[in-house]
């Protein structure tokens, strides 16, 4: 390599890094702005520029967002809604993951006539626009006596998450050697023992992927929460939207930002801790189906 092309090469590398870091700033900027301004008093936001770090650091917006801000008619802060979301997400994630695992197990290792059609219908259910089920679901929750309850929301998220959890486990178990199932059959193990002793112990990665996927989706859901929740089952996303868009009084931007970060925190933590599995879930949901 001669001198000229060596220099061209480093210039090109330098430009590459500049471009990449500019984009990193683009993606980070909104988060930075939210965080920085959530620590400012309101007066400072009004006058100052949004890029600056706080001149006076304050935790008041966070306290207010968590426990005293006016949401709807009550000044409870986001705290009760955070717990609403937790008590909705945990059972919905666990149930849909367990059922999805069993479905995937049956669809790959206990094939039967017509299983392709069954899987096709389950897979297609992942992609429906949820507007199509809003009206009958509202009616059905009323019939079941679950209207406005957290249990009702758990049911909704279970049903409409099942397609994805089944897809994840089905694709994972399809690559799981059928000879192992046969060996276990010769060893005398039957349906459930094969599942518990042979498949499930090897399912760690896909369980993590599925749990993260379901957790993120259900935590971030807005449509179902807005449609089916009552005062004491409203999830975090809906509460945040109520906080931000309430038209009464002064707009407390710093409180809004603290609230938004609070609503984003659980999924962000999951992402930071196990981003690899999060990406795998996204890929599994996209590339295969």
């Amino acid at each position, binding site marked *: 390599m001669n001198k000229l092309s060596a220099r061209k090469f480093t210039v090109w*590398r330098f430009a*590459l890094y500049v*471009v*990449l*870091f500019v*984009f*990193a700033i683009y*993606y*980070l900027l*909104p*988060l930075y*702005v*939210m965080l920085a301004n959530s620590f400012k008093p309101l007066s400072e*936001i*009004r006058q*100052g520029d*949004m890029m600056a770090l706080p001149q006076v650091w304050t935790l008041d917006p966070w306290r207010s967002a968590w426990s005293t801000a006016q949401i709807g008619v009550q000044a409870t802060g986001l705290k009760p809604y955070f717990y609403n979301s937790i008590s909705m997400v945990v059972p919905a994630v666990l149930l849909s993951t367990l059922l999805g695992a*069993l*479905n995937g197990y*049956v669809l790959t290792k*206990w094939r039967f006539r017509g299983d392709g059609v069954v899987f096709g*219908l389950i897979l*297609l259910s992942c*992609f429906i*626009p*949820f*507007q*199509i089920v*809003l*009206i*009958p679901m509202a009616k059905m929750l009323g019939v079941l006596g679950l209207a406005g309850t957290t249990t009702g929301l758990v049911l909704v998220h279970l*049903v*409409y998450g099942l*397609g994805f959890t*089944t897809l994840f486990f089905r694709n994972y178990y*399809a690559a799981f050697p059928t000879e192992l199932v046969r060996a276990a059959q010769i060893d005398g193990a039957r*349906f459930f023992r094969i599942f518990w002793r042979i498949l499930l112990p090897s399912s760690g990665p896909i369980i993590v992927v599925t749990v993260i996927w379901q957790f993120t989706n259900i*935590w*971030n*859901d*807005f*449509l179902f929460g807005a*449609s089916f929740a009552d005062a004491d089952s409203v999830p975090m*996303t809906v509460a*945040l*939207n109520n906080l*931000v*868009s309430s038209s009464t009084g002064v707009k407390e931007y710093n409180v809004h930002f603290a609230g*938004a970060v609070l*609503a*984003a925190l659980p*999924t*962000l933590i999951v*992402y930071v801790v196990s981003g690899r599995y999060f*990406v795998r879930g*996204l*890929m599994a949901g*996209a*590339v*295969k189906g």
Partner: protein
Amino acid sequence: MKDWFQAWLPRLVLGPGFLLILFFVYGFIIYTGYLSVSDSKMLPSYGFVGLDNYERLWQLRHWTGSLKNLAIFGALYIVICSVLGLFLAIMLDQKIRAEGLLRPIYLYPMALSFIVTGTAWKWFLDPGIGLEHTMHQWGWESFEFNWIKSRTHAIYTVVIAAVWQSSGFVMAMFLAGLRGVDPDIIRAAEIDGASRVRIYRRIIIPLMRPVFLSAFVVLAHLAIKSYDLVVALTGGGPGKATELPATFMYSYTFSRNLMGIGASSAIIMLIMIFSIIVPYLYAELRADPRR
């Protein structure tokens, strides 16, 4: 008896989940389909009115406007996300040292709720307090960026926020695709004397066809379903400038109490999504050697 039980056990285990989906998805689709040809207003009602709701739907400026918005939003969202995603993936694929740091930064918005994204961008784009205000503070008095308040340009702010949220994900899809290219093919092209640019243009990017297809399907279906982001960012406004079919359906069904029309708009949304998804899934399942 025991053998019979063992033989049917798998189907018994699959049964409940499958029946839930049959009932809550396909049963509900049929039910909504019926409501769309009924005289339902505030509550479901079963008087058959034929295609009246559909005819009224297509005469509503509100609906045709939301379809037009979806066309603008969907096209820009898909194209920009794909181009930006591919661009970033190729950049990141140049043996970048900081890749482990940059990749998660590009991708993290995907983990956020659209409500959070909407809240952040709503403020960021607000001329009175966000970017424009800040530029003025910094001394650039003539800077103007008030699209979010503009009837003609507000829809583009939805594109900006949505691209911010999803482009990192498309980048990850392309990056996985690039990493899957057989390195021997690239070596062969290098021996043939092809330049880096030519290798990408003639060999690698054409190999990304399946990724383009997957990205298109995922993004198109996200675009049609878009609801939360609009609610949080613009609330459909100013006026009806950022209404999309999803927000239209919600407001006609639950605020305006015209459930028949709301149901017919939901059916149209379903048809749009299925006409993209069904051929794709069909091709994927047929090509899947496991079946």
